[in-house]
């Protein structure tokens, strides 16, 4: 490969455990060792944060150095000879771990971190010796309500300062600090202060032990029972990469997934609660005029209404796209409404704009605005125009994907066919309701505000009789004489990718099976 002057970096040769490796100059020695598969334990180091070298777990021996050095605080240098597994290093690490465990409470049974705890993992991997200590442990405060979303247990804290650095460096809101000295050191907020910054839950993620735990997830499930599915946060147009943690068909939390292009290691607190919409207030069964109906009957009724109105006054039939729908749903609605039924009045909308910051949060609270705008050919009318058209009677029939707060009152003589996932005024007013799956229940894709296309994976089963939107639309198309045969979302995606430029370079990827945290590598 020809050296590109912009990216070419100077490399240095380092010998790690007798093997020669080349690393870019200035690289962190710990990262370098990890990148070549050499295992070194650490508590305080975090790839997204600065290195204070306080835990002393990542000590390595460097030839020429008088004593072991913390690898997370050392940059690689040419001709460096590193030993990571000498008996001396291993013994020092073990002793450091023994110190760490000295005052650690015997809390595994009640600690939410058990199962994804770094302390548990490192003890098991690097120590494995029974206790020598028989003395009393230092007691500190437990169950401290430290913030809106967070509970602190000072006994469990191993003083790694990761959380302090997350507040300082990521949230730019220095809320936490360490007080007192020696074995009486505690993690705490300033008197009268609370840990209430919009990125506070990241402290829970980075906490290697169970000192900081999320109130929302507190005692909901043990960590090892959860299954992790990669997905994308639907909270705003940023599209942070996340992992859905679900157990027995129910989502329990969302955690950020490393993605250097979007969110690095972080995620806002607001986005973490977007899963609530998946578990609450769902439309489970199809209905016609508010009465429970079978799916074929509801599809037939929807087709009848649409067909009649299209035959009568095609110009008064409208279709509403959703900025929250996946590219696949959007594409199939495009094929059905625009290609097949030749509906001309095309609207699109989503959640209203909200607050934003310079860290991750976007003002556009819809995850797929970019995808919809780039899929549906203009003119794309707004919801405001829809309101006007409904009021003036220019529209008599609408086919709605998603359940935006449409200005449809129950008395309005408008035929509404809605593919809905959550209950709301629109569902209450609709003539035909077809339940569809939400983002966590389908395979699909979103395009974020920068046009980056990211994959969604189904983490939990669809509730009731709900189906993915594209499937409902394809079946509705079948009733209306618009034949669309898709066996899976990936087929829809393949067709869409062939038609819409922004999907051209996107790769569908594998259908990943959820990994149970218990048998996947421990997340500690």
């Amino acid at each position, binding site marked *: 490969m020809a050296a590109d002057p912009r990216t070419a970096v100077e490399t240095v040769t380092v010998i790690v455990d007798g093997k020669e490796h080349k690393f870019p100059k200035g690289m962190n020695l710990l990262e370098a060792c990890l990148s070549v598969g050499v295992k070194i334990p650490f508590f305080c180091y975090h790839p997204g944060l600065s290195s204070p070298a306080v835990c002393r777990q990542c000590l390595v021996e460097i030839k020429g150095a008088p004593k072991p050095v913390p690898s997370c605080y050392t940059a690689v240098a040419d001709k460096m000879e590193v030993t990571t597994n000498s008996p001396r290093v291993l013994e020092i690490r073990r002793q450091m771990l023994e110190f760490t465990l000295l005052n650690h409470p015997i809390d595994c049974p009640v600690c939410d971190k058990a199962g994804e705890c770094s302390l548990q993992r490192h003890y098991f991997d690097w120590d494995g010796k029974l206790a020598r200590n028989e003395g009393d442990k230092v007691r500190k405060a437990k169950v401290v309500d430290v913030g809106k979303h967070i509970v602190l247990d000072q006994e469990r804290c191993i003083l790694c300062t990761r959380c302090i650095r997350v507040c300082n460096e990521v949230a730019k809101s220095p809320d936490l600090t360490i007080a007192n000295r020696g074995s009486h050191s505690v993690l705490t907020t300033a008197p009268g202060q609370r840990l209430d910054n919009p990125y506070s839950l990241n402290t829970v993620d980075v906490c290697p032990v169970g000192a900081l735990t999320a109130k929302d997830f507190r005692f909901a499930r043990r960590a090892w029972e959860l299954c992790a599915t990669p997905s994308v946060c639907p909270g705003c147009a940023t599209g942070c990469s996340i992992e859905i943690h679900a157990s027995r068909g129910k989502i329990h939390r969302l955690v950020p997934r490393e993605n250097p292009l979007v969110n690095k290691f972080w995620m806002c607190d607001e986005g973490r609660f977007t899963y609530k919409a998946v578990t609450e207030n769902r439309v489970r069964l199809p209905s016609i005029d508010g009465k429970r109906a079978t799916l074929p009957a509801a599809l037939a009724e929807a087709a009848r209404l649409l067909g009649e109105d299209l035959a009568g006054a095609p110009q008064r039939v409208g279709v509403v796209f959703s900025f929250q729908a996946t590219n696949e749903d959007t594409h199939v609605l495009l094929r059905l409404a625009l290609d097949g039924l030749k509906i001309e009045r095309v609207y699109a909308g989503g959640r209203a704009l909200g607050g934003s910051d310079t860290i991750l949060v976007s003002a556009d609270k819809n995850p797929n605005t970019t995808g919809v705008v780039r899929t549906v050919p203009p003119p794309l009318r707004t919801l405001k125009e829809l309101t006007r058209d409904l009021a003036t009677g220019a529209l008599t029939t609408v086919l709605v994907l998603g359940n935006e707060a449409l200005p449809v009152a129950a008395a309005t003589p408008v035929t509404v066919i809605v593919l809905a996932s959550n209950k709301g005024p629109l569902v209450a007013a609709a003539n035909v309701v077809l339940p569809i799956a939400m983002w966590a229940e389908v395979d699909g894709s979103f395009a974020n505000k920068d046009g980056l296309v990211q994959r969604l994976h189904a983490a939990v089963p669809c509730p009731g009789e709900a189906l993915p939107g594209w499937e409902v639309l394809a079946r509705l198309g079948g009733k209306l004489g618009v034949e669309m045969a898709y066996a899976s979302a990936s087929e829809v995606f393949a067709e869409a990718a062939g038609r819409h430029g922004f999907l051209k370079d996107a790769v569908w990827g594998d259908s990943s099976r959820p990994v149970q945290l218990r*048998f996947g590598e421990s997340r500690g």
Partner: protein
Amino acid sequence: MASEALARRRVVFGESEVSDFDEGDLPTEVMPLQMGPSHPAMHGTVRITLEVEGEKIKTADVQVGYLHRCFEKEAEYATWTQIFPYTDRLNYVSPMLNNVGYAMAVEKLLAIDTKVPERAQYIRVIVGEISRITDHLTCLAAGAMELGAFTVFFYLMKGREWLYELLEDVSGARLTHSYVRIGGVVADLPDGWPPRLRAVLGKVQSAIRDVDKLLTRNKIFRDRMDGVAVIAKEEAAGWGLTGPVARSTGLAYDVRKDHPYLVYDRFDFDVPVGSAGDNFDRYAVRLEEMFQSMRILEQALAKIPDGPIILDDPRVALPEKRETYNTIEAMIAHFKLVMDGLHVPAGEIYSFSEGGNGELGFYIVSDGTGRPVKCRVRPPCFANVSILPKLLPGLFIADVVPTFGMLNMIGGECDR
């Protein structure tokens, strides 16, 4: 005369010239007969589709699998420790042997098989040999009962019950012991247990002697067993037969002798073999093996050392409860072992031991996580039963019972 009549029939009825019958026998119509899966002699539910002429068997099609419980698939969804209750249910008349066999396989993959404390190894030998006796007692009891000798059944079952009681004292359950753990056993022998074992062995011996008097020289029994279902020595090796079935043919293969494991090389015992390879030899070999097992038991009771009963390594065995309650180190080890399962290094291994019916093998594959990728069992009686379709033709329906009984198929193990 008879042959002429037969020839005439052939001409008249167009019957085949080629006949399996002795010249002079009147040919009868072949009758298909379903023996099992619900048949009193087909313990462990197996189906034998017979074609019989009168009572003589022409062909036999043995169909196993009616007791299939997906052991191997279940094992893929269980941690290494959770598999122990499943192994109890493989050969359910000698669960300890399965426990031990499985534990040995995992220990080999963990490379701790030589570090298992000596006392634990002796305990494993002791409970294993008791299990072997219960296995043989059950086999002979059921075999005799199916021949109509009901009293023998009760004499032997009585002995088995005493031994089960001892095993219950040790493990807490009569049959589903789940007693062995990776790295050792779950609890030490109870106080005062060895003398009780010695007393019970004496009683079992006298029960076996009674049975010996009732059967061994009894001409009715001998008529039923002698020369029936003869297996040649080469044949036994060729079909992969092991255990008492193989030894009855004269093939002196015993894993305990040929590939000693645990502490078997420290005991003095004989490998009983047969000379004719018929059902009687299988009966006699089992009878003798019980006495040999008792010899081993006596030696083991005399030699058993004091010491720990499970490996002192919190990464393999759960720490002592007192430590778990009171120290974070043990608590963490405890949690890790339960929630993540034992971390068995990636790799595969075949480990085998002498089960009640022969070579009991476990082939396990690990990918380094807490669960096996594959846990395959080589059940001895699956191989043993495989020869049944070859043995049966030419015998009578009544011979199926002792032949099947002496092969000693255990459904739980064969079908898994």
